[in-house]
């Protein structure tokens, strides 16, 4: 059985940059569009990297800014200054 | 010129919720009213708490104070969550600016060494007392009755955590972000004689079981003496002794204290006006806690500001108590 981690964002402008960055850094991720919501799932691990988001946004970005747009997550969270990781360890 | 707006106008069938109609009549309610009145369960609880089988889950007898309706206690600031966080966000923006400025210009590390030492010994350890206030208010938010009362205490709890964090950042400004100053300040809190009175008072407050008594010991009495002592009198001392830059780092606390006394005073006035029994009970508690708070603060005051400052604070507090309808034992 597969172990999917996932994250969903409100479908808004900020989320578009996040989704773009996530796809860039996680080629195995699958993006699904739902009403008012964008959901991304990936086998085992998903990483959001500050550097990539900043490049796409063209400005400094604090990982915690993400909290404004997240709807839900699945997986163990590991967060520091530079990245936000969702992961299943098994 | 008039613009005709083509809308399908519809009259509302009611102006507000039934509980608010019963209280205030069928008229549009404020967001504060909608968010605060009658939002808690009051009857038909299913199970007795395993941790307190003598009481119902929501039980007005968790305090000796009696109110026919605790919703009589309202917040003069009319804070519901949205109004609360937006007010604090404005305050934190200004505060952030001050801390950033102070860090960039290295204002604290340029202070004379003895002044830095005094800040570390007399101000930074207060962060622990703030955590005590945070715990006490979270406890009251969980135990008390009526949304108008409970919500003020969770705001207060979070405010105190925030102030403890600001004080910690003063420590981090002093030690260049290593945490050493905070370790030192904690050692003062634990062992330095000037803090032991206050630490004992705070620890004693942790075992008060009556939530209204706890609110009195914390939000009325201790804060009523400690906040003016440290953020007004000690601040004044700093200004007079070359430490005026520190004031911008404690502005949040001064503004906050001015604001919070409004709801604290309003709550006590309402509770005292309810019955003579309430007045007697509150007065009795006050006579236990006020002298203890004064005693607890003596060694700190002696070191930080001089005893005279504490005595002046105490007499200003007596005036405040009088306005609320209570008597300070001093008189």
């Amino acid at each position: 059985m597969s172990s999917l981690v996932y994250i969903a964002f409100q479908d808004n402008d900020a989320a578009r940059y996040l989704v773009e960055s996530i796809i860039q850094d996680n080629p195995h991720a699958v993006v699904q569009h739902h009403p008012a919501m964008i959901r991304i799932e990936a086998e085992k691990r998903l990483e959001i990297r500050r550097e990539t988001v900043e490049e796409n946004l063209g400005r400094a970005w604090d990982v915690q800014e993400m909290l404004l747009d997240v709807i839900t997550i699945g997986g163990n969270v590991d967060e520091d200054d530079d990245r936000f990781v969702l992961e299943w360890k098994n | 010129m008039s613009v005709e707006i083509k809308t399908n106008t519809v009259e509302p069938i009611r102006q507000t919720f039934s509980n608010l109609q019963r209280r205030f009549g069928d008229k549009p309610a404020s967001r504060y009213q909608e968010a605060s009145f009658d939002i808690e369960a009051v009857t038909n609880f299913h199970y007795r708490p395993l941790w307190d089988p003598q009481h119902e889950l929501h039980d007005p007898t968790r305090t000796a104070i009696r109110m026919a309706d605790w919703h009589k206690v309202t917040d003069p600031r009319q804070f519901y969550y949205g109004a609360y966080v937006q007010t604090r966000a404005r305050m934190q923006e200004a505060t952030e600016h001050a801390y950033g400025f102070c860090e960039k210009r290295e204002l604290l590390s340029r202070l004379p060494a003895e002044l830095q030492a005094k800040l570390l010994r007399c101000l930074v350890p207060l962060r622990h007392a703030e955590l005590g206030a945070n715990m006490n208010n979270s406890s009251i938010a969980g135990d008390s009755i009526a949304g108008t009362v409970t919500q003020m205490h969770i705001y207060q709890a979070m405010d105190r955590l925030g102030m403890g964090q600001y004080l910690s950042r003063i420590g981090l400004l002093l030690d260049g972000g290593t945490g050493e100053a905070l370790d030192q300040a904690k050692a003062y809190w634990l062992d330095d004689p000037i803090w032991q009175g206050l630490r004992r008072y705070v620890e004693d407050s942790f075992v008060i079981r009556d939530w209204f008594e706890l609110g009195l010991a914390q939000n009325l009495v201790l804060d009523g003496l400690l906040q003016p002592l440290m953020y007004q009198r000690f601040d004044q001392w700093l200004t007079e002794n070359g430490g005026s830059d520190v004031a911008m780092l404690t502005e949040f606390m001064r503004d906050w204290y001015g604001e919070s006394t409004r709801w604290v005073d309003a709550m006590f006035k309402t509770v005292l006006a309810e019955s003579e029994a309430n007045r007697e009970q509150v007065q009795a508690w006050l006579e236990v806690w006020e002298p203890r708070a004064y005693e607890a603060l003596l060694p700190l005051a002696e070191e930080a500001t001089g005893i005279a400052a504490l005595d002046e604070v105490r007499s200003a507090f007596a005036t405040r108590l009088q306005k609320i309808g209570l008597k300070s034992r001093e008189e």
Partner: protein
Amino acid sequence: MATHNKKRLNLKDKYRYLTRDLAWETTYQKKEDVFPLEHFEGIKITDWDKWEDPFRLTMDSYWKYQAEKEKKLYAIFDAFAQNNGHQNISDARYVNALKLFLTGVSPLEYQAFQGFSRVGRQFSGAGARVACQMQAIDELRHVQTQLHAMSHYNKHFNGLHDFSHMYDRVWFLSVPKSFMDDARTAGPFEFLTAISFSFEYVLTNLLFVPFMSGAAYNGDMATVTFGFSAQSDEARHMTLGLEVIKFMLEQHEDNVPIIQRWIDKWFWRGYRLLTLVGMMMDYMLPNKVMSWAEAWEVYYEQAGGALFKDLERYGIRPPKYVEQTTIGKEHITHQVWATFYQYSKATNFHTWIPGDEELNWLSEKYPNTFDKYYRPRFEFWREQQAKGERFYNDTLPHLCQVCQVPAIFTEPDDPTKLSHRSHVHEGERYHFCSDGCCDIFKNEPVKYIQAWLPVHQIYQGNCEGGDLETVVQKYFHINIGQDNLEYVGSPDHQRWLAWKKLETPSQPAGSNKEHDAA
């Protein structure tokens, strides 16, 4: 000052200094007097320092981000009200989902606020306390924003006007109420297992995502906005839920069996509670998002599968009776809607027979069960209704002693047989809807014999009257003829038709094209 030989703190360590390092070991009062509730459940914590902060949000950031969210949210509420947004929803039947939400969910948010405030004081680990307090104030946010979103609907629709009064009294609202009372009357560790882990982490997606996507599909801008805004807090709460479980499991092996029992209990409690949400998804949304069965597959079977695989290393297995939910997902929503349809005299929302298009959708989504067991029943009731004999059941249903849902579910291995269990405790026989609920009772009979079962209370005359009408009007505050009964022809329906300049149907009948064509 001092020496600068130490390194600057990284984010993680800095956050520890700004939260748990504010705490100290008390010496003037004994630890067990300061934290008296930490041991009675039998959970062993050897080292609170091992607590991993689930998120690192200091109060200044919290104020900043939350204020930004609130500003956006209230701008939309204002715009919604000013533009009479309630007229732009898909159909007035949709509002009945909101009635269920406001009376059944919003009061739970308030209970959660007080519950987390309490546990936010009770743990001796300051990191855990602070995380709980942030959730406490978030939960307060949720109940308040929900009320503010519903305020406008309440001005134009019935059934929303006395949510809090109803929550304490109405028969089916004892399902959510007893759930939350159960969690809050438990000890602090069980409360977190119940709410943070089992509910927030494992099941909350099944509550919020369907409701909010449903709102988005049905033109309800206000609800979408508060829902998704609330969910952004939920991501923090879910992280706390997972951290709590892992922490307790890592602290001591003796904790494992206790936690397993709690997981079994709270999974089953949550599953029964969510039946109401499933019914909403399958029957109350005019524009449907996904079926309950599909939602269960995505949000429980798939996500929960990965979770429990991850927890295996601690000796935790998937919740007991989980296999029954895989069978039940094809049945329970139909069984519950059929129940509410009959007992609509005593509900604060309307019920109806789905139109043909909706019946076809249900047939398609539930190919194994709907046509075989449920469609004929709904079609029969529709025929009765067309003849002017809308079916109402004038009795009250028999409630399960634990979950308090009427005992209307069928046996896992036989969908034609009602599932019924009973157990004798101290000479008294108690009744249950399932093995899951019966087990919960047997583990804590002293707790569950106290349950305030609305139907028993009504029959015992404790609800202001012996007859149903008095109870409904006087005790429940359900306005007869306005809040309750059939949707077709109701005041809500008539106002909707007037706004939309549609004609009133000549007789109450399920909205069905077949009938019109005949």
